[in-house]
């Protein structure tokens, strides 16, 4: 399935993009998406437990993803 990742602030600058699409196996969780993101250029620094929102709502990392979900990384407090 395909999900959309939104990047803001320091993550947007590190990845040099505000959004990207990610191809994931069925039954992937938010945590699986984060693990994949860490392999992308500039995002190796992603913390083990990033704060995320799915479809504009704060979400746990264990949430099961569905095709078309919009996953936003919410960098907290201070970074960069």
């Amino acid at each position, binding site marked *: 399935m395909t999900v959309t990742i939104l990047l803001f602030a320091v993550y947007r600058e590190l990845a040099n993009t505000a959004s990207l699409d990610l191809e994931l196996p069925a039954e992937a969780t938010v945590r699986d998406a984060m693990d994949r993101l860490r392999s992308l250029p500039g995002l190796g620094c992603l913390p083990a437990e990033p*704060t995320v929102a799915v479809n504009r709502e704060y979400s746990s990392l264990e949430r099961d993803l569905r095709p078309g979900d919009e996953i936003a990384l919410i960098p907290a407090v201070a970074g960069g």
Partner: protein
Amino acid sequence: MAPEAGGARVIGRLSDDPIRVEELLRAGSSADGAVTVFVGRVRDHNHGRPVIRLHYEAYGEMAERELAAILDETAGRWTLSHLEAVHRTGTLELGELSVAIVVAAPHRATAYEASRHVIEEIKRRLPIWKREEYADGETEWVGPAPSEA
């Protein structure tokens, strides 16, 4: 956003334009004995470093949703008649208003407590980031603090 949560008039929005407090102050009716206004302003320093400018970046759709949720929760918890919150986005110079919260209520305890609750929740939950530009040319991103939930 529910415009009449708990009987209160509730307005929350992001704004790319300067915040005009004079207009916000006309909130409420003569049934309200107390009005509090909180404004956040761009400070000329942060943790001892001179700041020259700020830029706010928002996850707009989610920020508006969270702000509406914060205001509805607040209007459900306290008896108030008008609750309005505006958060700036874009580039702000020193002294400009970054956020304003207006509460009109029959009693002053309510007006203070509801106002304080709203700003704390905004700082904690709103997906808005500020990039501080320092006098030495460096910049730093500061975001919400949802882990303090």
